[in-house]
């Protein structure tokens, strides 16, 4: 039995991921307590620094939940976010921290189930990886 509850920061697009969250709520599906949501107007606004700060402050993992590649209403928000997540993965690798501690998930407004699933997926993945080596 693993008692470790990873602290996760999730940046969620206010269009698709938050709509998916509402559907999940309607389905009485809840997120695990260890996932802290930060709602953003578009995942394209998330900078590398935004993704690094949770790690600096002791988060075990970070993920971005945004649109499908072809359905961002700002056209390229999710593809920009994907490049920034990849950049942060490279930084983590250089610091010898597991790059899997950060991920990007493509959702759509209708995917209430999936919104909750990714939170559990990240939680499970981080339980396997263990606590962050960054001690605050």
């Amino acid at each position, binding site marked *: 039995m693993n008692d470790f509850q990873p602290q996760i920061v999730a940046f969620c697009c206010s269009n698709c991921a938050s709509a998916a969250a509402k559907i999940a709520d309607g389905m009485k599906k809840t997120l695990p307590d260890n996932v802290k949501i930060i709602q953003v107007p578009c995942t394209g606004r998330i900078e590398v*620094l935004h993704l690094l*700060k949770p790690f*600096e402050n002791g988060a075990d993992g970070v993920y971005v939940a945004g649109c499908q590649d072809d359905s961002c209403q700002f056209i390229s928000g999710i593809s920009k976010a994907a490049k920034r997540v990849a950049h942060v993965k490279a930084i983590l690798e*250089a610091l010898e921290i597991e790059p899997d501690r950060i991920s990007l998930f493509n959702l759509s407004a209708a995917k209430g189930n999936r919104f909750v699933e990714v939170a559990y997926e990240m939680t499970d993945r981080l339980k396997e990886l263990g606590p962050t080596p960054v001690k605050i």
Partner: protein
Amino acid sequence: MIVAEAKPVKEILEMVKDYQKVLVIGCKGCVSVCNVGGAKEAAILASTLRIAGKKNGGGVEVGEHTLERQCDPEYVDEVKDMVENYDAVISIACGVGPQFLSERYPHKRVFPGVNTKFMGGAIEHGVWAERCAGCGQCVVHFFGGLCPVARCSKSLFNGPCGGSDSGKCEISKDVDCIWDMIVRKMMAEGRLQELVEFRPPKNWTTARDGGPRKLVREELVK
């Protein structure tokens, strides 16, 4: 602008591994425009170093500050009180920045956080290309506004070499043959004849060949 790119994180970590208090200094000039050394990038590097420090047991203090420019002494002076509180400084300006900081604060270790690449411009978002070699005697007006010094792999002045193939340079299919472009542009402008006009050889003593350069403008000197 002067175009630079960030040094690998591991290289920077190796540079400052013996220092507990590190100050990252950005520059709001060229390196800010090419997204490598401005306030945002200073914050990213500082955060990265803090993560590394905390991972390795803590005790590392990382500060960040961005100067208006690092190539003017009055701005470099601005951080004198701040620099005193740190063991080492990382400048993420072009190569001028760490030198001006080293000269102003000779008792501090100053490290370069970026590799300075060339003088150029953004040809699309996130892509920069060299346009000027700083030869000290601009000749672009003779060549349809295109510079053979910076943009020809051999800096040829009198036409393409045998390595020009279908408008590309032999060094890479990604590099345009500037002489192909010059000739086409001059043809389109009806000025091809100008290319065969005699011009004396270029004086290269104004370029790097003449050694380190200095410019004095008496009307500005106090």
